[in-house]
């Protein structure tokens, strides 16, 4: 995470050593340019973990501050991959019912709508194709065997390295009738950050989608009034994106200077 922040710092601080790193200094502009083609890994690896980025070195500094000899370390950031049936718990019944419900509707087949089913740490995540989100949400709400009455919220996540799937919107649904939960994850590329709104299905998503637009710049198409909600109306940028700096000023204390949090030495 500190890597992105470093990329925003315009110039190196004069006091910082620059030539001590054993590794060739990584240019701050392509800190996240990985050699691996992430798109291909996703398409083929059904059950293989999904790589969303790469971690370099063992410590935060990327501009020569790492004198440990671990500067050349490269570790992939792997998220849990798709699960294989049976998923366990109520997850098999839920996905089965959803498959039937989507089939009846005839709009989208289950296979097209749900790209990946991930069961991880006892939680069920359905990765939904963005154009199919309203259909899936409606089926989850209306089918008597599913009956997810409440959408508890929308959260955004920004993965700048996942080419073509940079922005994720994460929906948590709750069924009080069946006492179940399911998480829907929808992704959109940075260049075309649009996701269909589900306000017409779950009115409670209204403010949550506005917040996600405010913080990540995801445009929820069909939202009745997609305006900023937490930041001022004329605010430039979307603060929760990883390329948006945290900001802050150096603080002087007893002669020493403490840099702002995103410029401090850190670990990754």
């Amino acid at each position: 995470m500190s890597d992105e922040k470093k990329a925003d710092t315009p110039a190196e601080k004069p006091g910082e050593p620059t030539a001590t790193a054993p590794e060739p200094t990584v240019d701050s502009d392509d800190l996240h340019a990985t050699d691996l083609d992430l798109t291909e890994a996703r398409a083929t690896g059904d059950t293989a973990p999904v790589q969303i980025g790469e971690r370099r070195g063992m410590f935060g500094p990327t501009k020569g501050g790492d004198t440990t000899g671990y500067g050349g370390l490269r570790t992939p950031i792997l998220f849990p991959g798709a699960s294989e049936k049976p998923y366990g718990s109520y997850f098999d019944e839920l996905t089965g019912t959803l498959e039937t419900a989507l089939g009846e509707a005839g709009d989208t087949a289950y296979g097209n709508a749900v790209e990946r089913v991930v069961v991880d740490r006892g939680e069920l995540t359905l990765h939904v194709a963005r154009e199919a989100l309203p259909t899936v949400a409606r089926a989850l709400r209306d089918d008597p065997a599913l009956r997810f009455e409440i959408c508890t919220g929308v959260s955004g996540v920004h993965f700048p390295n996942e080419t073509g799937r940079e922005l994720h919107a994460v929906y948590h649904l709750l069924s009080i009738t069946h006492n179940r939960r399911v998480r829907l994850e929808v992704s959109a590329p940075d260049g075309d950050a649009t996701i269909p709104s589900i306000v017409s299905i779950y009115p409670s998503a209204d403010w949550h989608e506005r917040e996600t637009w405010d913080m990540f710049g995801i445009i929820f198409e069909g939202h009745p009034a997609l305006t900023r909600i937490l930041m001022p109306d004329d605010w430039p940028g979307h603060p929760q994106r990883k390329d948006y700096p945290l900001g802050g000023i150096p603080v002087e204390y007893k002669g020493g200077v403490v840099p702002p949090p995103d410029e401090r030495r850190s670990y990754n």
Partner: protein
Amino acid sequence: MASNDTIYEDSPGLTPEPGVGGDPYATTDADREDGARVFNASGGDWGDLVDEATALHEERIVVNMGPQHPSTHGVLRLILELDGETVTEARAGIGYLHTGIEKNMEFRSWVQGVTFCTRMDYLTPMFQEVTYCLGIERLLGIEDQIPERANIIRVLMMELTRINSHLVCLGTGGMELGATTVMTVGFRERERILRIFEAVTGLRMNNAYIRPGGVAQDLPHGCLDQISETVGDLRKGLHELELLLNENPILKGRTKNVGYLDLAGCMALGVTGPMLRSTGLPHDLRKSQPYCGYETYDFEVITRTGADAYDRIRIRLDEMYESLKIIEQTVERLKKVQGPVMVEDKKIAWPAQLSVGSDGQGNSLDHIREIMGTSMESLIHHFKLVTEGFRVPAGQAYVPVESPKGELGCHLVSDGGTRPYRAHFRDPSFNNLQAVAALSEGGQVADVIVAVASIDPVMGGVDR
């Protein structure tokens, strides 16, 4: 104004420059001429607005209530469209207390995140801490390894916080209705709980007491007696509140059938907590999806069927008695269950132990002696855990808890690093505030106050 000269008669300081005359607000020389027409508003859709208002011929007033209004529960801005005394449209404007806590958490270690999230909803600090720590523990896969004593202390602290939050809700709600005594009684009783918090955590608010893997430290000596004593006092105080509120004709007149939201409305708007239970649905995550061992405690889920502000007050009152029941059970258990309050895994557990010294609370001297004088390895271990922190395996988790206001959850995403990749809090106040329009449109202006008070929003949690 018929003539521009009239303004100068009583204000000698504003005498027009000789030979210029006319409008002192003029922007061009042409406007300064006597008899020139003065337009004060122009541009954009202003003309359309004027035409629309003229065409309607109504006494339509748009009033901004807040953000600095004493009865809007903090910096909440309500935009009300009034027709006389009737509210025809109501919208809530938020964001005045946005402090970027979630963004800040991405730049601090997992343990430091507790210190941030505790400040979100400042009336329910323990609940944010618990949902955040439960999320981390699920990501780490150590949910089963939390010591029993730590879980009991968590429940104890959460239930005390619940009473604390409900007391402030009733107290400030009462004050907004003009009942100052309700406020003084509420805050007086809350003070007893804050004293316990101070004894246990060192702080009255923003405790940062519940940590990933357990709690920061064990209860101090004599704390259980203090809690038992306080429970008795609280019972008396709550009874006093009940006598003040329950059959109070003024309160009933103000709150009965005000702020009505039925079950379907609650479901559609995602409303949880006392508001949902006031429609008769016994939905409580402590019962339906228990955490921290809530399934082993004996308590009732309070419901009523009026779905109005009055029933929400009564539910909160009764819930506090249920919380007292749980607190008494935790005290009994804490007398029997001894042992650690932090996970065994030394790679996760916070290394320092706290104690109270002559200058207040801080690292225990025994621990300092060990790391500074005895064991170099201990010092390295302490230093690594405190500065770098522990790594959390990549993935995401969402472990909601039943906060006094409804479902509070933390969506945590980890990329396998020492800091949260993303921490998003689903605050119940944020969600429930969406119901303002449904609760107050068609009612009187005074009912808006009651409706908002019955939601019990805390802007620190709404805006984060």
